[in-house]
Structure formats: structure tokens, C-alpha cells
């Protein structure tokens, strides 16, 4: 093959493709372009190398939820705070979130944590603050995913609300920041 004239052409075409690929990869580092390019990059061939930059963004994300019994007016914040039977905020625990770490070889739990982080950012862009009812993208994939996750651990017939909270640091007492707050949902039903 190497002796044929076509070999030179194949090499030229390959180098041209690699140059275009590299140019697109470089463009993908710019957020403005990466949003557009993401639509075409179905196979993850355009990397975005930012690695904890510009904002390190290393707050630990947690999915929490609370449940309310039938009869409590979940639209009334005062009643919700005082009514009996409303659970405190509980951490959503999943078997995929707890597992051993073997340095240099094994830590699958990081992907589950990253999934929560990415989905939360999909629902509410960073810096948007607690968006309450209006800013949350309720038809987004992340919103539906979190609703299903929490629904799977609540009792049939109960009503539940979930939130993504973030904390920072190893300190035993640390501040929690609400990032996303869902509506109340009925188990097996719709938002209320």
C-alpha cells in the first residue's frame, strides 16, 4: 500500500481530518462554542479540558428529601413547618453511593456523585441561587431523574419533596446551601 500514489492521499486526508478535529477541540474549550458543538458530539469526541477551572466548584452535592402525610397543606409553608408527620430532611442514600476506594484502581462511587452534581447543574445553572418554583427546569431530565430516585424510597400514597443541597469541607458542623428545591409530588402521581 505504501508504494501506491493513493497512500499519499490517504495520509493527506487523515492529517486533514486530525487538523479539523484538533481545531474543533480547541474551539470546544470556549464555552460559547462548546454549547453549540455539544449538539453534534454524540460520541464524546470533542473534549473539554477545564479540570476544576475557572471555579474549583467542589461543593459536595447531596440529594435530600422529606415526606408529608395526606391532609397536610403542602402549599402552606407555616402549616408544613408545624404539622405533625412531616419528616425532617433526610439524605437520599443509594447503594451505588457507598463503596470502597482502592487507590489507583477503584472508585466507582465518584461517577454516582458526579451524576448528582451534573444533573443538579442541568436543572439550575451555577450561580442562579435557590430558584424556588420559577427557575427550576421541571421538564428537565435531572428533575425527572431526582423525582424518580426519591419516589423509589418513599411509601406509596405519601407526598414528597426533594432538594439538592451543597456543603463544603470536612467540618462536622457545616453550612448547607439549597441549590434546587422541587415541588411536592405524590408517590406515583404528579406535582401538587
Amino acid at each position, binding site marked *: 500500500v505504501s508504494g501506491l500514489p493513493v497512500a499519499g492521499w490517504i495520509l493527506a486526508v487523515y492529517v486533514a481530518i486530525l487538523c479539523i478535529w484538533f481545531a474543533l477541540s480547541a474551539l470546544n474549550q470556549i464555552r460559547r462554542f462548546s454549547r453549540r458543538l455539544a449538539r453534534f458530539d454524540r460520541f464524546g469526541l470533542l473534549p473539554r479540558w477545564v479540570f476544576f477551572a475557572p471555579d474549583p466548584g*467542589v461543593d459536595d452535592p447531596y440529594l435530600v428529601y422529606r415526606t408529608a402525610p395526606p391532609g397536610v397543606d403542602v402549599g402552606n409553608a407555616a402549616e408544613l413547618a408545624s404539622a405533625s408527620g412531616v419528616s425532617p430532611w433526610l439524605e437520599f442514600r443509594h447503594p451505588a453511593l457507598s463503596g470502597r476506594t482502592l487507590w489507583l484502581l477503584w*472508585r466507582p462511587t465518584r461517577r454516582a*456523585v458526579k451524576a448528582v452534581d451534573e444533573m443538579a447543574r442541568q436543572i439550575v445553572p451555577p450561580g442562579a441561587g435557590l430558584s424556588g418554583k420559577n427557575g427550576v427546569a421541571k421538564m428537565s431530565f435531572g428533575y*425527572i431523574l431526582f423525582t424518580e430516585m426519591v419516589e423509589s424510597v418513599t411509601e406509596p400514597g405519601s407526598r414528597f419533596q426533594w432538594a439538592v443541597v451543597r456543603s463544603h469541607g470536612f467540618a462536622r458542623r457545616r453550612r448547607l446551601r439549597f441549590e434546587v428545591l422541587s415541588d411536592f409530588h405524590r408517590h406515583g402521581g404528579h406535582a401538587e
Partner: protein
Amino acid sequence: MTPSQALSIACLGALVGAVITSTEFLWLERRLAMSKGGFWPEALITDEISPSRLPWAGAFLSNAALRQAQWLCIAASLAGVACLALGVSPVAPLLVVAAATALTQQRIRWGGEGGDHMTNLILVVGIVGFGLAAIPGVTAASCAFLAAQLTLSYVSSGVAKLFGSKWRSGQAFAEIMDSYTYGNRVFANLLRRRAWVSAVAGHAVMLFQLTFPLYFVAPRPYCYAYLLAGLAFHLSIAVIMRLHLFVYTFVAAYPCLFLVRQWFPW
């Protein structure tokens, strides 16, 4: 070092990384992460994709298909490692690994990381590089592309850090260490007491990343200090932050950097 050797080592790293990643996904699947109420539920993903554009995709995105893809990926990766060790063309195993990886990434569309991207790049240029190895220059072009992507990754990350106030002020490293997800309690305590260590470490990372193109300009053997620094950088990230995939994918592509540097006379 020849282009074939450099590309072989890069592919070896990607294949080892693919084995680890597939094993992780099998573990996550056993831990119900792919079931209803999990992080990548089958029904939610197939419902979203299948009816609208790809009606046949549901079968490929099921948990059963995902599981089979992981086993296939592990088997093909091991076959690829054997091919590389025996000096046989690894194109067929690389193709299988690339297909299984592509299917997995359609299914696991969030929770990915930079190491996954580098795996994709190595697999694609590895397939072409070895598949068209008879054509002079193709394998070398594959290596040059990987070297260029590595350089882009460092420079791009360094430039992005310049735009971050916490990186500029030196706080970022301490903040990263002080988190459950990527941090390290021992280092977090150390950095809380000695803030200057965070500033020095953070700025050293930025300096390394921003000046990485000097690797191609600095005279030998001083230029290799960049490779040693990069090796230390990725090993530190793997040990301290428990992000190990970067070692297998990024460091394994370093021979491509070494090869490309040989092309310069100085």
C-alpha cells in the same frame, strides 16, 4: 522510540482504563444504579431517546445490553493487551472496545470525566494508526494528534484557571482538598494551617499547565522535566483526589509527547 511503540503504549493505557471503567459500570449496575430510582435508569433513558429519533436504540440501551457491552469491552481489552504484547495488530480488539465504549457512553450520559474523553481519542486514532500502519506517516500522525491533545488539555486548563479568582488568589487548592468528593482530610487540615502551601501548589499547577508548550521549545534534556512534572501531577491527583483514570489515559499517552519531541533537532 518509534510511532508504533508510542501508539502501542497509549493504547495499552486506554485498554487498561477501559477494563477498569467497565468493571466499575458492572459494579454500579449490580448496585442498582441502572435501575428505576438509580442514577442511570434504563426506562428513563430509553423512553427519552427511543421514540423520538431512534426507535431501535432501546434494545441497545437496555441494562442487559449495557452489561454485555461491559463484558465484551473487558474481553476485547484483554485481547488488545495480548495483541500489543505479542506484536500483533490490535485493530480488531480496539474496534470492539471503541464500539462498546460508544454504546456505554450513550447510556451513561452523565457522570463522565476527562479520562473517558482521552480514552475515546486514543481508541479512534489507535484504530486508524494501526489499521493503516502500512501507509507511512499515519501512525506518526496519530501520535502527533495525541501529543497535541495533551498539550491542549494542559494549556486550556491553565488558561481557564487564570479566569478563576480562587485559583489566582491561591485558595482553590485548599478548597478542592476540603471536600468529600475529591478532597483529602489530611491535606485539608495541613492547608488550613498553612495557607501558603495551597497558594504555592495552585500556582505551580497553573505554571506547569500554562507553560507546557515550552516542552517543545526547551532544549533536551531539560524539556523532559515537563514530563516528570506531569507524571507527578497525575499520580498526585490519583492518590490524593482518587481520580485514577487520568493516570492510565493521560500518562499512557506521554510516549507520544516523547516521540514528537524527538522530531525537533534541539
